[in-house]
């Protein structure tokens, strides 16, 4: 049906449209005048490089918002006070930029921002999607800056100062400093160590040896006290919680080697181990740093909820209508909601009649009819006509807030899933400490002068380094490879759950389907008309409707002359063409016939055609399901939609196991029951109503085009618009788990072989340090094999 994808936003282009934009001398098709304008703006400002550099776009990303005028509200003083910090002539604000998806976007945004008159600085973080701007208030307003972003096709949202604080940034800065101190310290101390070892063989004058040792001490000290501090803290927490982790032997080894080396330096003993200390700290710090960066990729929670709600609302009071930030709404306020706007708070409809789309909250694709006295939920979208709403609850007390809290609780109640590495490591940690103590005691009794050196060798050689690296290195490599396959991992633990999963559950609307209705079938009831005519007339009639079904009919160029168009809320639309009244909608509305399934087109009370509308399946949905079955996974469908709709979809996909009419609680219950039966469950879903179940599943995947709350609850975000990477992810996870097992086996064999030698005193600490590093290196190299997974 489409002739290709829009050059700018990647949505399908309707072949009947004629929108093109010339980039680098070539005509590229675009889907709408908005995309054309954005693409031309990007080209005319000399930034067409953006198209060459960006990653493959998600459909719809960058498509411009229809209404840029709303941003003017933000130029007002009270809005500036709410969203920005002002200082002498300048102001500073943080803006969440929705719709950006790669580093090319951040380049485009920064470059464009730098050209805004009066802009002092603009920095964007592509990971957190936050833009920090500082500007001269005399030259431009906050509204102007937001409008510029909206014109580029992004979805800007100013953040209140308290939610703009960025703890993850401070954490990253601290971790970077620690890593740098450890790496520079390691390089220096290794250099001195080479000198000292060479001296051992060739002979070295004693003053020089002492000097090198003292210098090593000076360089090691900041590494031990600054870079390694997080390990002591975590070890101490483990001790307090009576659950000693990997950090306890690590801390003991670092402290013992450091104190022992100082002692050896002071007493002129034959060896020091400063080099072992710094190398050890460096590798561990590097591991922690990489782990932290993966963690920061997950979308932050604070912006997720507010993104569904409008930034501003129109409040009606005795003084008339005023636009205020949504955050200032209180219970009892009466708010005006225009068609197409989302509802900011839970409340009661007090004036008007409309249909609302609650798909995000309930998963039900069909809009719900609302009249005076009915309850409206925050986060749903008003479709048909202007209504007034009396606010009952706001913020976290709304249904939306409740779902969000529920997903938070589900996350904590997740079955405690013990990772292989943790399971093995906790035994090994205890074993190492016991063995080291036993060896120390033995040597202290038999040969007290060697007791310390031997014990230290045991600690270093059995250092759970390779063991500690075995899992994270493989998971990090898997994360990188998955990102190349368009899956962003926000929780590394999910990989193991994916690999062992036995069951996979899909949400329907927006996950296995595209989430947008299409005309599936046209049945002509009056032979005076053909399909093409019916479609043209239907399209003309639907031009006034904001109902989601209207998008199935909509075309860009319509030459049908139509007048007296109106929307009959909950029934359909009507209009006059060539002096005849045409209607499109329910059968009862179009021709006073008894209602039956489908959308009807009629003229002057006679039915002309029937359209079957359905939500189209994703192209690769059926293939993915059969691929998953080959992998031995049982697929299921759980949806908040009606029985018939779910049954229809399940039938087409060949899924036998489905549940319809599920509330978020029901979905969570289904997963809990499966988990109690010993199944490991993956959930794939995109709506807010899926958030609790995503958080409660063993592993969860959310498409990036879905609700942000679903994404914050998910372990993996599916970037593309295909479903097939889900199956690939499972294969890759199994491969990863295989490599983790190999790594663990190697680490254990190495430790088992080296331990007796060290305990008997045959391994000097420097050899132990080399052995430890070599075994870690092997583990890392083995893990890197994952990067070639699926490559030709």
């Amino acid at each position, binding site marked *: 049906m489409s002739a290709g994808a829009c050059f700018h936003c990647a949505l399908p282009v309707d072949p009947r449209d004629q929108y093109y934009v010339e980039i680098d001398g070539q005509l590229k098709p675009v889907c709408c005048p908005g995309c054309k304008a954005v693409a031309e703006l990007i*080209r*005319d*400002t*000399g*930034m*067409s*490089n953006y198209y060459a*550099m960006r990653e493959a776009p998600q459909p719809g990303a960058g498509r411009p918002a229809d209404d840029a005028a709303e941003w003017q509200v933000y130029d007002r003083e009270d809005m500036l006070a709410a969203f920005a910090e002002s200082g002498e002539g300048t102001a500073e604000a943080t803006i969440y930029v929705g719709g950006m998806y790669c*580093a*090319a976007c*951040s*380049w485009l945004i*920064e*470059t464009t921002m730098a050209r805004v008159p009066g802009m002092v600085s603009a*920095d*964007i*973080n*592509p*990971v957190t999607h936050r833009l920090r701007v500082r500007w001269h208030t005399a030259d431009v307003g906050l509204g102007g800056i937001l409008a510029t972003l909206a014109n580029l096709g992004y979805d800007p949202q100013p953040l209140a100062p308290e939610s703009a604080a960025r703890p993850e*940034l401070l954490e*990253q*800065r601290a971790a*970077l*400093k620690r890593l*740098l*101190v450890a790496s*520079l310290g390691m390089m*220096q101390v290794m250099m*001195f160590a080479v000198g000292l070892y060479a001296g051992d063989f060739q002979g070295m*004058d004693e003053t*020089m040896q002492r*000097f*090198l040792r003292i*210098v090593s001490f*000076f*360089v090691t000290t900041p590494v031990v006290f600054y870079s390694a501090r997080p390990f002591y803290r975590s070890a101490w927490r483990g001790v307090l919680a009576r659950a000693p982790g990997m950090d306890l032997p690590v801390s003991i080894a670092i402290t013992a080697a450091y104190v022992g080396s100082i002692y050896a330096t002071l007493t002129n003993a034959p060896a020091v181990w400063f080099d072992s200390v710094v190398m050890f700290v460096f590798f561990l710090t590097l591991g922690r740093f990489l782990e932290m*960066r993966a963690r920061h990729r997950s979308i932050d929670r604070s912006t997720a909820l507010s993104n569904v709600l409008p930034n501003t609302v129109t409040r009606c009071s005795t003084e008339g209508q005023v636009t205020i930030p949504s955050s200032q709404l209180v219970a009892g306020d009466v708010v005006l909601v225009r068609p197409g706007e989302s509802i900011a708070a839970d409340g009661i409809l007090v004036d008007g009649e409309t249909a609302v789309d609650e798909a995000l909250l309930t998963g039900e694709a069909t809009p719900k009819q609302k009249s005076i006295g009915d309850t409206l939920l925050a986060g749903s979208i008003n479709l048909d006509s202007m209504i007034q709403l009396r606010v009952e609850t706001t913020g976290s007390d709304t249904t939306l807030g409740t779902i969000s809290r529920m997903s938070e609780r589900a996350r904590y109640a997740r079955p405690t899933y013990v990772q292989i590495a943790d399971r093995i490591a906790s035994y090994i940690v205890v074993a190492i400490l016991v063995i080291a103590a036993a060896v120390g005691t033995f040597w202290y009794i038999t040969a007290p002068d060697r007791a310390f050196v031997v014990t230290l060798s045991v600690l270093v050689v059995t250092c759970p380094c390779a063991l500690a690296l075995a899992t994270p290195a493989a998971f990090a490599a898997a994360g990188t490879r998955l990102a190349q396959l368009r899956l962003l991992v926000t929780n590394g633990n999910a990989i193991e759950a994916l690999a062992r999963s036995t069951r996979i559950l899909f949400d329907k609307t927006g996950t296995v389907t595209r989430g947008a209705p299409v005309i599936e079938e046209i049945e002509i009831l009056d032979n005076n008309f053909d399909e093409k005519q019916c479609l043209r007339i239907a399209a003309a009639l639907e031009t006034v409707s904001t109902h989601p079904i209207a998008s199935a009919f909509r075309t860009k160029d319509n030459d049908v002359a139509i007048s007296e168009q109106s929307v009959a809320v909950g029934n359909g639309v009507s209009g006059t063409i060539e002096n005849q009244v045409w209607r499109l909608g329910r059968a009862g509305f179009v021709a006073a016939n008894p209602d039956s399934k489908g959308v009807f087109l009629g003229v002057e009370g006679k039915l002309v055609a029937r359209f079957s509308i359905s939500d189209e399946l994703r192209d690769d949905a059926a293939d993915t399901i059969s691929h998953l079955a080959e992998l031995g996974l049982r697929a299921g469908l759980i949806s908040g939609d009606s029985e018939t709709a779910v049954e229809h979809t399940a039938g087409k996909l060949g899924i036998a196991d489905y549940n319809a009419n599920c509330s978020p609680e029901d979905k969570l219950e289904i997963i809990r029951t499966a988990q109690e039966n010993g199944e490991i469950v993956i959930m794939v879903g995109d709506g807010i109503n899926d958030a609790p179940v995503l958080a409660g599943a063993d592993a969860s995947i959310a498409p990036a085009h879905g609700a942000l709350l679903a994404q914050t609850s998910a372990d993996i975000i599916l970037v593309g618009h295909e479903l097939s990477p889900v199956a690939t992810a499972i294969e890759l996870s199994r491969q990863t788990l295989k490599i983790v097992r190999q790594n663990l086996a190697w680490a254990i064999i190495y430790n088992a072989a080296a331990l007796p030698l060290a305990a008997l005193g045959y391994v000097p600490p420097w050899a132990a340090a080399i052995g430890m590093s070599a075994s870690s290196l092997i583990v890392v190299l083995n893990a890197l094999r994952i990067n070639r997974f699926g490559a030709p």
Partner: protein
Amino acid sequence: MNVLYFLIPLALLLLAGAVWAFFWAVGSGQFDDLETPAMRIIMDDDTKPPESPDT
């Protein structure tokens, strides 16, 4: 070899300087974004906008 007694402390001083410079750079936010700069190097800022016909 005695020159080492001078050179090594000098190296350590330089090292301290490097660490200080890095801390300052991190503190001033230069390392907050570790992704975009990698892209920026291969993007030309000097592509001229096409002549607009109405000027």
